[in-house]
């Protein structure tokens, strides 16, 4: 049963374009995350956000930015995509009180940059 929703499932675009991916969770969680999963399946945290604090992984290029309208939504915007941005982008959320440890993931958005 999916409680973290991501759209679109797939996106193909050209180098230099801007893309935006959506994420919504219906679990009542207070913290949301974006991860990047590369072709070798390595998962790397990009952002975590809980309404009060945005934590950015220092290795994330500035063309990436999270956008939140409320604690149930955390979108990901990529200003000018590069070929190395091709990956699966996974959104997750965590339950209050667990210190963010029990994270629930969405199905991911697969980005292909031509």
């Amino acid at each position, binding site marked *: 049963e999916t409680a*973290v929703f991501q759209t679109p499932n797939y996106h193909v675009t050209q180098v230099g374009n801007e893309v935006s991916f959506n994420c919504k969770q219906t679990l009542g969680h207070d*913290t949301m*995350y974006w991860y990047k999963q590369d072709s*070798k*399946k*390595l*998962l*790397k*945290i990009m952002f*975590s956000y*809980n309404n009060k604090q945005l*934590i950015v992984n220092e290795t994330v290029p500035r063309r990436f930015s999270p956008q939140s309208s409320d604690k149930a939504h955390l979108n990901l915007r990529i200003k000018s995509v590069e070929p190395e941005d091709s990956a699966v982008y*996974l959104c*997750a959320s*965590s339950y209050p009180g667990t*210190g*963010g*440890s*029990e*994270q*629930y*993931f*969405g*199905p*991911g958005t697969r980005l292909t940059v031509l």
Partner: protein
Amino acid sequence: QQQVRQSPQSLTVWEGETAILNCSYEDSTFNYFPWYQQFPGEGPALLISIRSVSDKKEDGRFTIFFNKREKKLSLHITDSQPGDSATYFCAARGTQVVGQLTFGRGTRLQVYA
């Protein structure tokens, strides 16, 4: 610098056998270790987890063994089933940033009937 390491990269077992997936870490502040299961085309799903105060956690056919001194843990899947075929990720959380997990590269498990 890879903080969480997993081995083997891939593992094949027959139905009914026990699959053993290994994980080691470097950061001594890590105190919580979840294991995630990921099927193709899906996001990772939390399978089982252990805190560093325990040395064993069992949930059905899945058991984590934890050795704090050696900074190692392992996931044992007994009576493996073809439906267990997936990629398994070991992750770790420390005290440096609330909620942030560091993932290993995963072990791809294939269970043959």
